């Protein structure tokens, strides 16, 4: 499979890459939390007189972890309800038109294909075509599509989009992105707090008390930690965006696995891409849950370093190209099963 990869190879590749990014993210969080403790530990363990303060318990790190856990727990509990409420979605329980019947059927089909239980189905009154999944637990998930999506896509395309959302549910992306968003928030709070402490003359009072054995290591660790605190909010956000893009590619490939029809998702994405107006009912906070960037930001459509770093979704042309490559692989496999 040189260059062009079939859907299972693409799934494995994107899963691997997002694992690396999540590991980097967690390492950054750990350093933000425990780096300061390490510096103070080094600074207070010289051969000093007994009774001097020794920083043995990593109080700051524990506080950071507790803060992150609290934010994540809050997002877990109320996330799905808040998102659906914010978009003004209405739940479809009983189909009242052929279009809604089709939506219900397609979701049921994709639930069967993915082997999950059927999520609850919502329609967002918005003319821009978009869709999102939410709910941190696959057994109690929600899928919402806009009215614009229903009216613009044919059955196969709608199926591919719903499959993409089922893929987010099965790959536990909602859970992952909720957790990352909470940790980004925690890092921002910690950084902000550290700034204020530094400005408040915290430095002067402390340095005198340090013994001679503090050594260069402690100073270097402290300086590096403070520098990290400065850039951590930005870096953590960029890492989370990187994870989000990898999970989008993964969901595209998983959608192809469910429908065995990557060409349908490619044409659905083309249509969504052509509708340039932003999805007004979805705000920045929910962007990473949608099938296409709801803000219609120009970075999403460009390739290049800045676009690659700042977008929640990979560039549309790249996604479409990869799906077409999957479709091509399938055609080739069908044409020549022996080789």
């Amino acid at each position, binding site marked *: 499979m040189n260059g062009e990869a079939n859907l299972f190879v693409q799934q494995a590749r994107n899963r691997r890459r997002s694992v690396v990014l999540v590991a980097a993210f967690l390492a950054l969080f750990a350093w933000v939390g425990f780096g300061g403790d390490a510096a103070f530990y080094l600074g207070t363990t010289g051969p000093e007189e007994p009774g001097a303060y020794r920083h043995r318990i990593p109080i700051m790190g524990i506080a950071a972890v507790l803060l992150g856990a609290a934010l994540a727990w809050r997002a877990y509990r109320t996330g799905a309800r808040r998102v659906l409420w914010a978009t003004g979605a209405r739940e479809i329980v009983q189909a009242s038109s*052929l*279009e809604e019947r*089709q939506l219900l*059927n397609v979701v*049921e089909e994709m639930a*069967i294909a993915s*082997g999950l239980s059927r999520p609850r189905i919502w329609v967002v009154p918005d003319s821009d075509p978009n869709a999102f999944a939410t709910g941190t637990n696959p057994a109690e998930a929600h899928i919402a599509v806009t009215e614009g999506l229903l009216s613009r896509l*044919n*059955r*196969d395309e709608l199926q591919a989009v719903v499959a993409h959302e089922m893929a987010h549910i099965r790959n536990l992306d909602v859970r992952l992105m909720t957790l990352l968003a909470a940790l980004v928030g925690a890092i921002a709070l910690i950084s902000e707090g550290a700034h204020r402490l530094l400005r408040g003359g915290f430095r002067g009072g402390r340095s005198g008390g340090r013994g001679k054995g503090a050594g260069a290591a402690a100073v270097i660790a402290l300086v590096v930690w403070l520098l990290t605190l400065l850039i951590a909010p930005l870096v953590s956000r960029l890492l989370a965006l990187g994870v989000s893009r990898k999970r989008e590619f993964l969901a595209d490939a998983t959608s192809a696995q469910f429908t065995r029809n990557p060409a349908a998702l490619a044409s659905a994405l083309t249509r969504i891409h052509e509708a340039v107006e932003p999805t007004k009912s979805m705000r920045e906070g929910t962007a990473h849950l949608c099938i296409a960037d709801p803000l219609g930001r120009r970075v999403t459509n460009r390739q290049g370093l800045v676009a690659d770093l700042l977008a929640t979704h990979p560039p549309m042309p790249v996604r479409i190209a990869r799906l077409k490559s999957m479709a091509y692989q399938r055609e080739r496999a069908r044409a020549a099963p022996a080789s």
Partner: protein
Amino acid sequence: MTAVIVLLVLGVVVVWVIVTYNSLIALKNSVFNAFKQIDVQLKRRHDLIPNLVNAVKGAMEFERETLEAVIQARNQAVQVQKETTPGSLGKLAQAEGVLTAALGRLMMVVERYPDLKATGNIAQLQEELTSTENKVAFARQLYNDEATRYNTKQLQFPTNLVAGLAKATPAELWEITEAAEREVPQVDLSSKPKA
């Protein structure tokens, strides 16, 4: 010292056997569950067909043969499904293949009756039929994927050493046996409904 090492190695082996055994059992159950899902979807399909035939019967007096072929294939499939166990997939797959082909012909014929197509009832039935066919196909796809995963896992080294313990035997894949089903006529049911 040697005793400690031997005990450690033994402990690791025991843990590995337990984990592998459990993963095989989990896979076996998910294959069984996927099989049941096909069963459920086939039943739905069988229940839908009498409705479909009734809805088009009046307008399609000339197409007696097509209708009867569908009814017969359906009754045959219902009969076979009752007798099917996970071991004897082949026969059911064949009966369902005949039914799929007969339905395909019927839907193609319906296309030729614009009056029939114009009534909303038929559009709805068509949607239901498309969905039912898709559900059967996706249930089958899931079953085949799960069965392949199970079969691969139990044959791979070193898992195959535990396979006997877990009573794992390769699951039969659901294959398309009927040549007729391979060449199902492409009926365009995928177009958007006109509201």
